[in-house]
């Protein structure tokens, strides 16, 4: 019993989103973008700022159909992807990198994401479920994975375990 509340009786609520936040990890959130475009910007940022390595996670995917005379002539998919970079950086450089990619890529949702991180003073990525959406899955890895990525994966495991046990 702590502070008048019985912890054992409680169960975690599904209506919240759980994520990982920090100031020293470079994160980028690409909404409605193809994986190839996400990879392109990840490699550009990696080379330009010497970020050692990165991991791309897919948080959701949408398939669009292109119709012509009532028939589907082409299908293409766009997803929401998250990029986590391996190198530990200070907040000012972190914000500089995020802003640089947002400006260069001309992706409005990424610009919004960067502005929001600037307001909060830290960057956040979702690790747990969000409504019906499952937790983000790793789809691509490149370079070193022993720095901030290792930390992120540790927290991701912690959150997944929490959700599994707490929401049973």
């Amino acid at each position, binding site marked *: 019993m702590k502070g008048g509340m019985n912890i054992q009786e409680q169960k975690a609520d599904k209506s919240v989103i759980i*994520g990982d936040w920090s100031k020293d990890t470079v994160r980028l959130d690409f909404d409605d973008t193809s994986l190839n475009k996400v990879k392109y910007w990840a490699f550009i940022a990696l080379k330009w700022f010497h970020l050692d390595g990165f991991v791309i996670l897919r948080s959701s995917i949408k398939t669009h159909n292109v119709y012509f005379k009532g028939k589907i002539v082409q299908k293409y998919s766009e997803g929401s992807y998250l990029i986590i970079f391996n190198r530990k950086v200070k907040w000012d450089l972190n914000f500089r990198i995020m802003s640089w990619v947002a400006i260069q890529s001309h992706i409005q949702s990424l610009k919004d994401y960067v502005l929001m991180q600037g307001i909060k003073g830290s960057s956040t990525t979702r690790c747990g479920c969000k409504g019906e959406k499952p937790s983000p899955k790793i789809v691509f890895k490149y370079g070193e994975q022993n720095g901030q990525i290792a930390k992120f994966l540790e927290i991701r495991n912690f959150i997944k375990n929490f959700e599994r046990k707490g929401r049973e």
Partner: protein
Amino acid sequence: MANKEQVDFIRKEAKRGKSANQIQRDLRAHHMGMRRQKLLEYVRKFKGKSAKVESQRYTPIKYRKHVFVASRKMIAVYGSVNWQSRRVQMYGSGHDLYEAMMLVSKYPPSKRFLTASAGNIASYPDEYLDIDERWDEHPRAESR
């Protein structure tokens, strides 16, 4: 501290693409030997490389510091209350963090934006959390 001659020598050798070991050997041969730690700093600087994050991994086992430090996790829990977004950013490790997450996922914070240690939230939930309110069923908050 390295003198100007040593620095110039390291810069020249690094530009040629020589490794830190080769540069150290050459420095000794020219009677300009220096501490390896300092030498590596200069080599990194001239080659434009950053230091390894996990330096312990590259240290021989007998010289490693055997100090257990529980890694501090930083977790954000967010959602909405009456269609208004609320957010808790907490840091901590182990049981405290787990308890705090349990509490926060049930009761929203009294402020719209809260950053606090997990230990404090778990010990004094009344101060940080609004016990009478609940999170909205379907969070409106975006994944950012």
